[in-house]
């Protein structure tokens, strides 16, 4: 049986949680000096340590520890005064040494939160832990139809990625978001991505796999107060997929429960193409990793002074910046969120810094420029026009040199690479007719050519002035200031 999302939400309350892995932007790997780079030729960034060759000894990268603490502090976590790495034993060939160095019951950072903006309000997502581990190698599966594991005959492994520092950020379960659960999950990952970028600890390119998510979802029968069995959906590697995966699991689990079945605790796989999850191995047969304290690495005991030094180095965090800008620009939560969702906060801020009013900056970036970006299928911030140019166009409008129609033409010119707004105005001859004599002549001509309309205006029907304004605009090829033209018409006829 199938259950629609709406039906599912009538009977069940979803609870979700996210485990996010992000590769740190250190120069070298976590435990050796191999460069941590994306896209190098296979097995060219490996050494005895990251290949786990006998006799090699790992040494922790100070900057990776620092970045992890930085992330923990930005997420309002407590920083452990003493903790250890742990050895996670397993026999997949994605790690050449048959174990992964991770953290287990002593994470570096615990118990924080991240405030996310969704639907014009703030939802506080609890953070359970932030820990540091090494990334695994990359496998190609050969012989299967689709390059997937199932049906593959053998695998080819590249260990360039093995040992790159990876931070795992685990949320507490997030209940009470109801219908909006998928949107909150997506907003959380978006906010986390922006936060990590602002901290400068990772370039966070989801398409290159430097940020990856596992999504836990469970349902509880409304009013029961009892949380259901959760599933863990792996392979959720885009913002859109996070939202779809939560939604799809809510629908699937509701159908199972409605059909009298029970949800099995298991790992599921998300398929980008169909938007549904399928069963992986169930937790009952999950690996027994036999974690134990990593004997090759001494404990990590960050001195309080170091932690405070890192805290002092934190930049303004996205949530604080949002609150500041929203107040400075006098916007409602929803208005600000529209800017945020359009990815236009940064460009609007720069446009305002370049002298435009917040209202003008918003108008251009959310209006005309958002439309152009949408047509071109790019982010508004990657359009080939600078915030300074937009501010200049706004200034030209404010001073009466351009009207809105001419301003759009100037934007066209700048986007087409014709130069600065002033150069486009000069080259295309776009400035409004500011010569009062020429404008008056055009107005008189329009009145003479439309005696009927002129008579109606004289009779008090000033709304008819539009016809005459249109005629003047046509005569001046759009280069007249409409407000000035209207004033001139009314001066003459009323």
């Amino acid at each position: 049986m199938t259950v629609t999302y709406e039906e599912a939400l009538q009977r069940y309350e979803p609870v979700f949680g996210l485990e996010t892995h992000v590769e740190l932007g250190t120069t070298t790997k976590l435990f050796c000096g191999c460069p941590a780079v994306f896209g190098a030729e296979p097995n060219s960034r490996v050494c005895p340590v990251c290949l786990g060759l006998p006799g090699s000894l790992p040494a922790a990268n100070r900057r990776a520890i620092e970045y992890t603490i930085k992330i923990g502090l930005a997420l309002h976590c407590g920083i452990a005064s003493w903790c250890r790495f742990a050895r996670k034993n397993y026999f997949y060939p994605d790690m050449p040494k048959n174990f992964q160095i991770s953290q287990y019951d002593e994470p570096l950072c615990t118990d924080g939160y991240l405030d996310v903006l969704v639907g014009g309000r703030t939802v506080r997502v609890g953070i359970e832990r932030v820990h540091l581990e090494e990334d695994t190698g990359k496998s190609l599966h050969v012989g299967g139809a689709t390059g997937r594991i199932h049906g593959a005959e053998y695998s080819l492994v590249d260990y360039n990625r093995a040992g790159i520092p990876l931070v795992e950020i685990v949320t507490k379960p997030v209940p009470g978001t109801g219908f909006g659960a998928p949107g909150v999950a997506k907003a959380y990952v978006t906010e986390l991505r922006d936060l990590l970028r602002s901290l400068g600890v990772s370039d966070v390119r989801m398409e290159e796999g430097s940020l990856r998510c596992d999504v836990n979802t469970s349902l509880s029968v409304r009013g029961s107060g009892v949380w259901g069995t959760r599933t863990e959906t792996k392979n959720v590697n885009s913002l859109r997929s996070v939202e779809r995966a939560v939604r799809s699991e809510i629908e699937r689990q509701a159908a199972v429960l409605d059909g009298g079945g029970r949800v099995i605790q298991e790992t599921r796989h998300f398929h980008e193409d169909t938007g549904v999850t399928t069963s992986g191995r169930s937790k009952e047969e999950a690996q027994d990793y036999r974690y134990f304290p990593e004997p090759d690495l001494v404990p990590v005991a960050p001195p309080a002074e170091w932690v405070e030094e890192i805290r002092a180095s934190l930049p303004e965090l996205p949530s604080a910046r949002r609150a500041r800008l929203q107040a400075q620009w006098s916007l409602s939560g929803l208005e600000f969120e529209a800017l945020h969702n359009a990815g236009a906060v940064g460009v609007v801020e720069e446009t305002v810094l370049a002298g435009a009013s917040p209202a003008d900056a918003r108008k251009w970036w959310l209006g005309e420029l958002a439309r152009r970006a949408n047509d071109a299928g790019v982010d508004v911030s990657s359009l080939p026009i600078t915030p300074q140019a937009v501010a200049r166009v706004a200034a030209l409008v404010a001073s009466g040199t351009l009207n809105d129609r001419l301003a759009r033409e100037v934007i066209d010119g700048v986007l087409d690479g014709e130069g600065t707004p002033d150069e486009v105005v000069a080259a295309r001859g776009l400035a409004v007719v500011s010569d009062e004599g020429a404008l008056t002549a055009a107005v008189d001509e329009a009145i003479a050519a439309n005696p009927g309309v002129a008579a109606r205006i004289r009779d008090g029907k000033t709304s008819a002035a539009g016809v005459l304004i249109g005629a003047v605009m046509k005569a001046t090829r759009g280069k007249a200031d409409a407000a000035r033209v209207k004033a001139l018409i009314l001066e003459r006829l009323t």
Partner: protein
Amino acid sequence: MAITRDEVAHLARLSRIALTDAELDHLAPQLDQIITAVAQVQEVAAEGIPPTSHATGLVNVYRDDEPRPCLTPADALSQAPAVEQQRFRVPRILAEE
């Protein structure tokens, strides 16, 4: 009993060590004896002293984030049982990564 025959079989499976029934019959009681003997340490372990994981007492031993030379791909792959496309060729992985 400190460890059962089934537990030994389970650990062997996790460690990818193939044991015959005869070997299990032989090894399980021996391991049980060894663990029982080592467990005597527990009896003298004093209250309030955490288990030792590192003997040196050192903390915060780090390296700077400076690149060091890598192996060449040829050297890195020289001990691999099988190589294809400059990658380690391994038997198919049964579970998802």
